[in-house]
Every structure is written in C-alpha cells, then in structure tokens.
C-alpha cells in the first residue's frame, strides 16, 4: 500500500485532462484521515508517472510536438499568413518560396487556406472527443457500475450504432438537418459516443468488482460517491486511449463529410479543400497533396499517441513471446 499523503496527490494530479477525476481528490481530502487510506492510490499515483513514462518514448515526444506545432500554426499562423480568402495572386501557381503550397484556381494562397481549414478540423476533432468522453462517462459509467436496465439499454443503443456505420449516419443526418460546424460536432458526437461508452462500461464493471470498492461500500459511502471517487478514476486509463483515438477518427469523419460537400461553406476545412481540388487534379497536384497530407499527419499523430499510451498502460500486452 502506498503511504503517499493524499494532499500531495491532489497537487500533482493532472486534473485538467480528466474531467471526472478533478472532483474526486478534493472529496477524498475533505473526508479526513480515515477515508484517505481507503481510496485506491493506483490511478492517481500512476497518472503522473504514467505521463513521465509516456514521454520517455522519443516518438511520443515527436508526435506530441508535431500536434502542438500544428495547432499553434493553425491558430496563430493566420495572423502572419496571407488572408485565406483574398484572391489576389496568379491562379494555380505551383509551390514556390512566396507560396509554399501554391495557389488555388481563384488565386488564393493555399498555405493560408490550409492553416485556416486546420482550425475547423482541429476544433471539430477535439470538441467531438470531449463531448464523446463526457457522454460516455455518464452513460457508460453508470451502465457498467449499476448494471440492470440502464446497462441493457446502453448495449442495445451501442449495437444500433454498430449497424449503421458512423459516416453514413453522420452523412444522412447532416444532409437532412444542416451542416454548420456546431451541427457537425453534435452529429459526430452523437454517432461516435457509444464506442467510448462501451469501454467506460467494461472498465467500470471490472473496477466495481475490486476489493477497494467493496471496502468503500462497507464503510458506508454512498454509491454515487464511490462511483466518482473510486470507480471512475480507476476506469480512466483505457478510456483515455479511446478518447485520443476519437480525436483522429472525428477529424477523418469530418474531412470525409466535407469532401462530400457537407460542411460550412464559409470556412472550408481540409476535407472541403480536397473537394475543390479534385477537378484540378490533372493540372495542380499541390491542391490535392497538401490538405490531405495535413489530415493524414494529424490523424497519424493522434493515433500513434493513442497507441503508445496504450502500450505504456499495458506494457506486456503486445509483446511477442
């Protein structure tokens, strides 16, 4: 058993990355000495050393740095780049020093448009992941922890979403109800949350069986209190992996929808840029190459980070015998 005082764990815990986790350490600290030893230190203690172990991998640093750099470029870059909608250059110029990604058929700087489009793709990816995580924690967590009718219902709903592939459902809903950026975020979260919820469910089911939950129950803590302070934090690690991967999948889906013309026409995302690029594929390869490369590299980075996070959490799982 760890003898680490809870107060230190509170300070070092990465509360920002774990919405549900944020309230638990304070709750534990408030209950006084008797309760402290009961709550499982595992999740909180590993969370910190987990990050350290995670970033000991050189590739993790590379991909994380790439994502941060891309985000900075997309959100700060436009202040220094050409205005993305100013049609003031010669049309369909190849990449050059003045226009590193060339210009489009209306004479706009492609780099500026890729940076502006990145804002849409990144906002959609991250918002969808956060929304999915939130819904998944509430629905999946309760279903897994309490079981019963809620559990059956969740599994049925999850099955339904498995039947209709996410992109088809998103496509149809966006076609019928509209495709503004907010709408796309809601539609994608609506179609993607069951996958995360299934993982939260399985994990909280497992944790609910463990000894420290039993102990907490014996001491007389309410089930809700146990759920938030013990079950959820300990169920989080695999859920974080799934959430990381959700960012990538959401960006892929969004770009697919935008490629099919479903997206905000005023702020073209990377997928929308590819939509217009297709008719010029014979003459202007750069229109096709750069926006797609941006999608690929960002999604690759999030998936690699998720995969490495998974390896860090289960170091023995993928080792060849």
């Amino acid at each position, binding site marked *: 058993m760890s003898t680490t005082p809870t107060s230190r764990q509170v300070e070092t815990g990465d509360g920002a990355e774990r919405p549900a986790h944020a309230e638990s350490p304070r709750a534990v600290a408030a209950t006084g000495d008797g309760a402290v030893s009961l709550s499982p230190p595992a999740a909180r203690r590993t969370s910190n050393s987990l990050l350290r172990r995670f970033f000991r991998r050189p590739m993790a640093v590379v991909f994380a740095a790439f994502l941060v750099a891309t985000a900075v470029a997309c959100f700060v870059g436009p202040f220094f780049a050409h205005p993305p909608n100013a049609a003031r250059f010669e049309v369909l110029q190849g990449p050059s020093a003045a226009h590193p990604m060339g210009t489009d058929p209306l004479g706009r700087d492609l780099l500026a448009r890729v940076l502006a489009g990145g804002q849409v793709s990144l906002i959609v990816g991250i918002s969808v992941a956060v929304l999915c995580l939130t819904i998944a924690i509430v629905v999946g967590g309760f279903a897994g922890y309490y079981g019963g009718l809620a559990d059956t219902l969740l599994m049925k709903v999850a099955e339904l979403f498995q*039947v209709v592939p996410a992109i088809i459902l998103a496509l149809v809903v966006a076609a019928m109800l509209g495709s503004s950026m907010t709408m796309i975020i809601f539609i994608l979260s609506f179609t993607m949350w069951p996958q995360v919820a299934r993982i939260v469910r399985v994990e909280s089911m497992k944790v609910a069986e463990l000894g420290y939950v039993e102990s907490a129950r014996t001491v007389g803590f309410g089930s809700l209190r146990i759920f938030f302070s013990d079950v959820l934090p300990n169920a989080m690690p695999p859920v974080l992996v799934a959430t990381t991967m959700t960012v990538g999948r959401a960006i892929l889906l969004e770009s697919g929808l935008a490629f099919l013309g479903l997206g905000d026409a005023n702020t073209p995302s990377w997928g929308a840029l590819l939509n217009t690029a297709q008719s010029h594929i014979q003459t202007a390869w750069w229109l096709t190459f750069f926006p797609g490369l941006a999608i690929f590299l960002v999604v690759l980075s999030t998936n690699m980070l998720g995969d490495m996070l998974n390896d860090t959490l289960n170091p023995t799982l993928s080792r*060849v*015998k």
Partner: protein
Amino acid sequence: MKIAFVGHYLRLLASSMLLVFSVVVIMFLLLELAPGDPIQGLVGQMPVTDEFRASMVEAYGLDRPIHERFIAYVANVATGNLGYSYANQASVGGLIVDRLGNTLLLTVPALVLSSVAGIVLGAIAARTRSRRVDGALSFTAIAGFSVPSFWLGLLLILIFASMLGWLPAQGMSSYTSTGVSIRHMVLPVIALAVTETAFKLRVMRSSMIEVLGQDYIDTARSKGLTGNQVLWRHGILNSMLPMVSVIGYSTGFTLAGSVLVEKVFGWPGMGLLLYESIQRSENMVVMGVLLVIAVTVVVVNILTDVVYGIVDPRVRARLHRARSA
C-alpha cells in the same frame, strides 16, 4: 441440441429485426425534424406537379397527425416501397438495387483482398523474431487507418493515372464499352482495401500473439514440430477465429467507405447515388440507401454468427450446455 440452435437463431433474428426497426424509427424522426417543406425534402430541389404532391400527401399521410404519419411510413417501408425518385424517374428501391451491384464489384474484392492481406501480414508481424519487421508493420497499420481513403484514392489517381498513365482514373469502363473492366477496378479497390487491411492486421497480430502464448502451442513445440509447422497447424486457424467477426464487422465499414471512394473514382454505385442525392437533397433516396446499408450489415452479422457456430466448436458446445443446464 437442434432446439437450442433454433432458439438461439430465433432470438438473433428478433433482435436483428428490432435493430432494423430502430433504424426506420430514426429515419422517420429525421424526416420529421428536417426543416422546410416535407415534400420538397423528400424529392429534392425539383419542381413537382400538383398531382405528385397530392399522391405524396396521400402515401405518407402528410395531412394526418404524427402517429398516423409514423404508421404510414413504417407500412411503406415494410412493403418495400421506398418511394419514387423524381430526379431519376425510377422507384427508389429499384434504383438502389441497380447501383448496389456496382458497389459490390468494389466492396467484395476489397473485403477479400484486405482479409487475406490482413491475415498474412498480421501473422508475420506476430511471428517474426525481428522487432524491426514487427515495428514497421505495426506502424504501417496505424498509418493505414490514419490515411483518409478518399485522399489515398486521389493520390493513386495522381500517380498511376495522371503521372504514369498506367491505369484509368474514372468510371467502370472506357467510354466506348459497357460493363466493367478490371483495369478500372484496380485503383478504387486498393483505396478501399488499405484501411481495412490495417485494421485486420492489428486484430490478427494481437490474436496471434495471444494464441502463441497458449499451452497447446508449447505442447506442439515440445512434441517436435518446427516453428513453421506450429504456426500453420495450430497458430493460424486458432488465431483466425476473431477474424470471422472482424470480417463481418468490416463489411459495414467497407460499404461506408465506398461512398467516398466511389465519389473519387466516379464509380456509379450506391455511394455515388447517395452523394448525388445529397447534392439534390433528395432525401427519399438518401433514406433508402441508409436502410439498405443497415439491412446489409444486419444480414452479415447474422451470417457471421452462423459461421462462428460452424467454425468454433466451443460456441456450439456453449449452446448445448445452455440448453441442458
């Protein structure tokens, strides 16, 4: 034992029908929620005659309260009446069936190709003693499902059609001929298969690693089989079990992926029909495609379950036990 099977498959059938019904409910709710004139919403941005308008009001009970509209809608769908496409001057059902064949020309080869490649590459990744080969394959797999299939298709066109001129970029066959040509199929099938191969590689790899850790593998080794014999006689088949459900599962993804790939390659399948109908906001066709895909996935799921029962004796035994217990 027979009865246990029948009971199991009846339950499966019932839950499958419930799933399809839920999809129909979602479709109805979407139609109700869609803004604007419901008839224009159904037929798209097309001028319609008053007669057609009246027939639509009649067919979908548009002048009646919501529960009657729902019953009318379900009755229409259940009798196979998916509506009439004004733009194509054809019934939606017939239109989709016509296009479904072209879509299968892409999805079936892509499924076969990705399954074979995924199994072989996954087995190699799990079996190899070289960390470099395993690492390279695992990285390629992640890259494979990180690449947007439509961008991959565009790149293939860029390289093999525009630059090298080896393969055609658009359509199912050249203008002068009808039918389908193999040369036209190559690029779209590859674009469609890459992501699926990557998923299957990963599943196969982890399944194989798990199988190779089992006791019977050690037994096989200790009775003197060579590494390759162990792999082929005991490893491959046992680790292919999860692949049955993965292949079933990936049917839906491949169908979904074909929407994007068909748009890239101008392949006149169901996905291109969906795209064109969305452009025209012809929601009746959009709904029809959604339903056909959902039904296809449900049918494939049932088939997967049946195949599982056939190839895995343990599943049969469990059914048997459940009955006698």
